[in-house]
């Protein structure tokens, strides 16, 4: 079995790099992206097994990005991470507040992978 492929979409360079490192340390392969547009562009290349999506992206809201993908029939497992206190819109998603513990994040990702 190839290692699971996780896309990390986060505009803050330091957070993106660190989350990438964490996922790789747990044996995943990663793709680090700064915007929702980059994510959409990257889909043509390879579809990730799971997306770690920051709620607040410069070009759009993480939830909007997820919705946009669903509307186009691209159903991706999405783990949303957020630095905001208000997570009211996201009852149907896995939303993890920052700073996120590795056990929580990895468990959330693996949960999707196992299902997939």
């Amino acid at each position, binding site marked *: 079995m190839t290692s699971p492929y996780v896309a990390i979409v986060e505009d*803050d360079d*330091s*957070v993106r*790099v*660190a*989350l990438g*490192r*964490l996922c*790789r*340390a*747990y044996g995943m392969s990663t793709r680090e992206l700064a915007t929702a547009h980059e994510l959409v562009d990257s889909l043509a290349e390879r579809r990730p097994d799971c997306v770690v999506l920051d709620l*607040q992206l*410069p070009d759009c809201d993480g939830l909007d990005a997820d919705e946009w993908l669903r509307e186009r029939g691209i159903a991706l497992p999405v783990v949303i*991470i957020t*630095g*905001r*206190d208000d997570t009211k819109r996201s009852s149907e998603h896995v939303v993890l*507040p*920052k*700073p*996120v*513990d*590795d056990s929580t994040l990895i468990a959330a990702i693996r949960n999707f992978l196992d299902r997939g």
Partner: protein
Amino acid sequence: MWPPLSQNRVSRIGWLAVLALGYYVAVRLGLSFRFQNSIIGVVWIANAVLLAALLLTPVARWPWVLAVTAVTHLAAMLPDAALWRALWQIGINAALTTTTALALRRFADLPLTLATRRQVLVYTVASFALAAVFALGTPVVVRSALGLEPSYTHAVAWLRVALSNGAALLLVTPVIVLWGQHGLTPLERLTPRAMLEGGAIVVCLLTVGFVLFGTGSEIARFPALLMLIFPPLLWAAVRLGPLGASTALLGIAAVSAWGTAGQLGPFVAFSDATKVLSLQLFWITMSTPILLMAAVIREREQAESSLLTLRQHLTHATRVATAGELSGALAHELRQPLTAILANAQAARTLLDTGSADAGELRIILDDIALQDRYAADVITRLRAFVQEREPHFEPIALDVVVRDALALTKVLLDRIGVSVDADLPPDVPRVWGDSVQLVQVVLNLILNACESMYHTPAPERRLRVELARNDTHFVELAIADRGDGLPLGAQDKVFEPFFTTKETGLGLGLAIGRSIVTAHGGRLWGENNEGRGATFRVLLRATA
């Protein structure tokens, strides 16, 4: 410095010794400063010393003060006066001074500072009224009433004693009490400039004093010249406060007494009795207005300073409120480095646990952790500097740094609302004289206002232009232009009024405080609508060079 009597036994004895010496000198001075063989002094300083001592000590110590001065009085008087007369004087003097001190304790809100009009008036009235009343009981007045004192009529003796005591209480007591309370600290605190001014005032006072009272009788031909005394006295009252004013008055009184006794000055042509009366009236008429003037100035200074303190508190309170508005954004700003630090640390730990760590990668991870930690510390330091309450500290300030700080504090908020910032902050713009925290507060408020005004602006058009430029040779101008709703038409200055707000939240103090800060910096803050959309706020501050 006069030590409080409660301090310790040695200093208490030392203090009483100083009192005894001062009182002795005062009695001898009073005795020596008489005209011909009059038994009534021109100014009975001893009572002024006694009253000052009573005002400087708690009531419980008054018996000591009275005992020491009584013994000293006997020692100073007995070579010349009969024992019964000295004892009589001791009794009546003690009665006058303790009654006056009690009256002042009751009506004048001690300690005596002469820093309020009320206290000056109460002090003047109490010392004169009581001096007049108790004069009726002095040996010379009682005996002249009984015909035992041939040189005076009853009324003249009473007037002379009353004025002699009254003038002493008015001129001498304040000087002793005020210096006694402050010690030499007012002198130690003098700035070189204040010292220069104080010196100039002393020179003026002495010059005028010697012109008026140190020259021959020709000065009496121009009585209007006596008015010359007022400019330097007013100068002292306005600039040096009650302490300086009362000291200046005593100095002038001393010079006038010295001159008149030496047959110089404007009163020389009069008979001895008229000379004495003229001197006393001269002292009394100049003292009260000068002391009142010093009190009025001091009252105004205190009102201004309490207003300033209040404004500082308000400025700080609004700063804290602004920080509160930003707290959500700041929490987010701290969560980013914390997230990176945690993920990095756990990645490194996992790499070590799985045995796949290599030293080079671990080093990079640790460097990143340190970097993120410093970033988080910077956020906290900036916030802390912004909200702490402290005295304003004026120094040359680079406005581009101020603007960058304000933008850093609002970065997350600007990102969240999707405001793109276009900042033109040339570093070679001259510095301005100011308080960096207050200036950050002004700029921050302008940025926040701009953000709020762009609430209805379509997201791609939310732009903020910040421009810093040298206005002309003397001023630096900071312009903050938004593309928001603009200022209310026809009432563009209304937004600077306290509690004026177009927002649903907020007190409406931001711009009012901003303008008051800029005005206190000697600058201007105003707003104008743009030709297209939005408004531009401009801050004009004087350049240091």
